[in-house]
């Protein structure tokens, strides 16, 4: 319950994702490697902790993306994303 009350949307990860990707990734579609559900990255469930940002699938609760910042590095763990589809229009000209 407590964990549920603290979750946010993928929108909340747009800032840190903008540090890593040129197009806005929250408008992209991600397919969960666990259950195959597909939806906007902005609609994933976000759990933001001191350790980093964990983005879970709203269908199966599996981890889709994980971003962790250390003092010297940013770790991006995309294991749970089978694919991410970005609209060509969102790319820089």
């Amino acid at each position, binding site marked *: 319950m407590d964990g*549920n*009350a*603290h*979750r*946010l*949307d*993928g*929108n*909340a990860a*747009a*800032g840190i994702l*903008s*540090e890593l990707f*040129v197009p*806005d990734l*929250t*408008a992209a579609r991600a397919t969960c490697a666990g259950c195959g559900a597909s*939806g*906007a*990255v*902005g*609609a994933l469930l976000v759990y933001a902790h001191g350790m980093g940002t964990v983005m879970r699938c709203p269908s199966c609760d599996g981890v889709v993306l994980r971003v962790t910042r250390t003092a010297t590095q940013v770790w991006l763990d995309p294991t749970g994303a089978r694919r991410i589809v970005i609209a060509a229009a*969102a790319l*820089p*000209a």
Partner: protein
Amino acid sequence: MPATSERAPPTSGSGIATTLRQPLRPIAWRLAAVVDIVQETPRARTIVLQVPEWAGHRAGQHVDVRLTAEDGYQAQRSYSIASAPEDPHVALTVERLDDGEVSPYLTDELRVEDKLELRGPIGGHFVWDVKVGGPLLLVGGGSGIVPLRAMLRHRAAALKAAEINARRHVPARLLYSSRRWDEVIYRDELARLIEDDPTLEVTLTLTREPTKGWMGLRRRIDRMMLAEVAWPPAERPHVFVCGGTLLVEAVATALIELGHDPQRVKTERFGPTGGAT
């Protein structure tokens, strides 16, 4: 390599780097200047900002605000943009959280002419503009009204009152839950907006201690309320739900149970401390 090779000559690594670097548009941290402050409710105020090199935004987007203490400690929070893209300045409306690290500074300490470090606009999912079309259903709780207000201001600015047919194509409804009457953010502005717009409907509900004489709804947003206020699912409204996590999840679940397309129900959870009612 034979002279007749049809392969393109190899590109040097530095050439690729130049190509890649050129279109990069990092969302950089900038120092904005506070040009005005408007007290909206006893706990919420609007901070009007002059942001250098602001490239414009879409209604629903947010900014990240970063405060740095003298010892170097930094705290960062996201705040929805309250202004429409058509407005001359970027505005944030911030509600005070008593145990917050950032909001008490913004609501109590920050003054006109102070500087505020921010980056944005951020987010491309929870966004709406008139090109997306309608019907537009907005459901908010507490300070969750902020990005929805940006959408309503954008709608009013982009579709002029004189072009009533254009507005009829994009009808809008707002269902807004507050704890008390004096905590209804943008109360006067919402009244003005509906006064000159028959294609906009606003429904308020108060969840605690209704003011004497309050004749409106007096309960949390529930499925029955949504069934009455929302268009039928067959009308395929674009739905934006914003507020505390529990309100957002209850509303989104009820809307999907009522038959609305989950892909059209976009949510922005502020978290348990972000204005839940």
